[in-house]
């Protein structure tokens, strides 16, 4: 029997929808699925696991928003006691940080940012993009002990939340001394969609010409519910915050639609967005390398095209 522990994520007690992705991955790996939820509001979030058919949830309900050493220490004994074979988390800030710390604590192997899982000849094979997606690797665990895996968001079809298991919760305990902990959380400004979560990204590069050049793009993005992305050239020029950067040293994104405006298409940028389902490039230079990858190209001034596109897409999305 293969046992899988999934670590759910929640926002103040509300279990995040990515729990469905964790459950889907766990079902590939094993037959017994347990969950854990940690942080303020964890007990409340735990109940929502019942809908996924998970009947036992370990809960660390604490005022401490996050402590990597503390949370890893709270989980480690249970993992040993229950002889868990796999631990699955999301590749989010929380998941990658806690997953790595936990793997180190257990002294067991860790494969992060996994896009697919399969069992081949009795061996778990994890697919993971390497070199920012320039190549795709298949990796196997060779070491003993529980293995830690984090999932790249939106790569596993979420399991349905349509079951009716009653959840039994069992408490976890924080160690008395924490080496480091979160003491303040400044919530994100509302209305801003992160590029990693967006279905549509409108992205701007050096071609927007300056900080004001992002205004029509921001307008367009807001009108169609898209996130605003940027090339490193635009970020390094100080025109837009780093959190918007797409690419090898920014965020790797995977939207349905990526609209690159005034971006030439350097290899480091392409590495971050080449798996987008549909790529549109708007660039006034017909020889820009981005056109080699774009499904649809418009050779024109972005400031002429973007307002028109905004008007028509708003209509199309409404109709």
């Amino acid at each position, binding site marked *: 029997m293969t046992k899988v522990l999934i670590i759910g994520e929640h926002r103040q007690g509300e279990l995040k929808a990515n729990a469905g992705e964790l459950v889907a991955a766990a079902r590939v790996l094993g037959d017994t699925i347990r969950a854990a939820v940690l942080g303020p509001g964890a007990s409340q979030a735990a109940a929502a696991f019942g809908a996924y058919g998970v009947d036992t949830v370990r809960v660390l309900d604490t005022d401490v928003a996050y402590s990597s050493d503390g949370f890893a220490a709270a989980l480690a004994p249970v993992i040993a006691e229950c002889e868990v074979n796999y631990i699955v988390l999301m590749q989010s800030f929380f998941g990658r940080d806690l997953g790595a710390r936990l793997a180190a604590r257990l002294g067991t192997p860790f494969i992060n940012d996994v896009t697919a899982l399969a069992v081949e000849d009795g061996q778990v094979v994890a697919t993971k993009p390497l070199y920012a997606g320039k190549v795709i690797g298949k990796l196997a665990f060779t070491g003993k002990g529980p293995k830690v895996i984090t999932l790249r968001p939106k790569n596993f079809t979420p399991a349905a939340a349509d079951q009716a298991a009653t959840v039994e919760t069992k408490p976890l305990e924080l160690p008395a001394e924490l080496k480091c902990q*979160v003491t303040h959380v400044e919530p994100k400004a509302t209305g801003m969609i992160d590029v990693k979560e967006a279905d549509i990204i409108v992205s701007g590069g050096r071609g927007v010409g300056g900080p004001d050049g992002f205004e029509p793009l921001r307008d367009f993005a807001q009108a169609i519910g898209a996130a605003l992305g940027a090339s490193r050239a635009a970020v390094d020029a100080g025109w837009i915050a780093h959190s918007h950067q797409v690419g090898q040293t920014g965020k790797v994104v995977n939207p349905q639609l990526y609209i690159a405006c005034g971006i030439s298409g350097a290899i480091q940028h392409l590495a971050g967005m080449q798996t987008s389902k549909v790529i549109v490039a708007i660039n006034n230079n017909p020889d820009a390398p981005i056109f080699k990858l774009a499904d649809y190209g418009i050779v024109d001034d972005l400031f002429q095209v973007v307002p028109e596109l905004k008007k028509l897409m708003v209509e199309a999305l409404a109709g």
Partner: protein
Amino acid sequence: MRIVVIVKEVADTEAVISLKDGLPDLSATAMVNNPYDEYAVEEALQQADKLGDCTVTAVMVGREKSKENLRKILAMGVGEAVLIDDEALAGADPLQIAQVLKAAIEPLEPAFVLAGRQGVDYDWGLAPLALAELLGWGHVGLIAKLEITGSAFKAETEGDDGLLTFEGSLPAVFTADKSLNEPRYPSLKGIMQAKKKPLETKTLADLGLDAAAVGGAAAGLKLINCNYPPRKEAGRVIAGETAAEKAAALVKALREEAKVI
């Protein structure tokens, strides 16, 4: 007081990755210092300036030819460097690298360690966190801001649902995100001075480590094979006289052909 910054070499981000027998072959690839590690180096230098009377030591697990890149770190202003070079480490996993780093760093008794958020090769982001765990220290990943006051620290990070402020006590490990600072370029003077700065090389035996335990042969992971992602074909350029016409034709295509809106 000492600050340690850990630096790894990675393939140049411009490089196309060659595959040989289904595995990456970097034998002809230009290697650079991991871009994120440059933010860690810059932070170490700035913190050293603020704290005063502080030595910054760079530590790298690499090969003989990595010395060239380590010299670049010294040219930025780092005082001294240690290279751990041992054949047995080929194919070591990040947990093993962390064990090696621990053995090299613990005797240096640093106030804290700075690292990059992840190597832009396998994107593990694991070695520094594992180092913290092995040393029994706290860590903060992906920092955007760091304040050291005596033996306490405060660090800020962009979390999943907002900006997180972490507090804790030193020693600790911090991993640098790009928003932390702007790495300096080495000056000509820095480059000249770097040639004379101490750069010590050590083997696993020098660190009292057993190659059978921390070497690649005992790695907990295996790369089975690699493939290139399916190549995206160039699509088509949208025809039209005016920007408005092109925009209209694009929206029609997105709707009727691509079916994404």
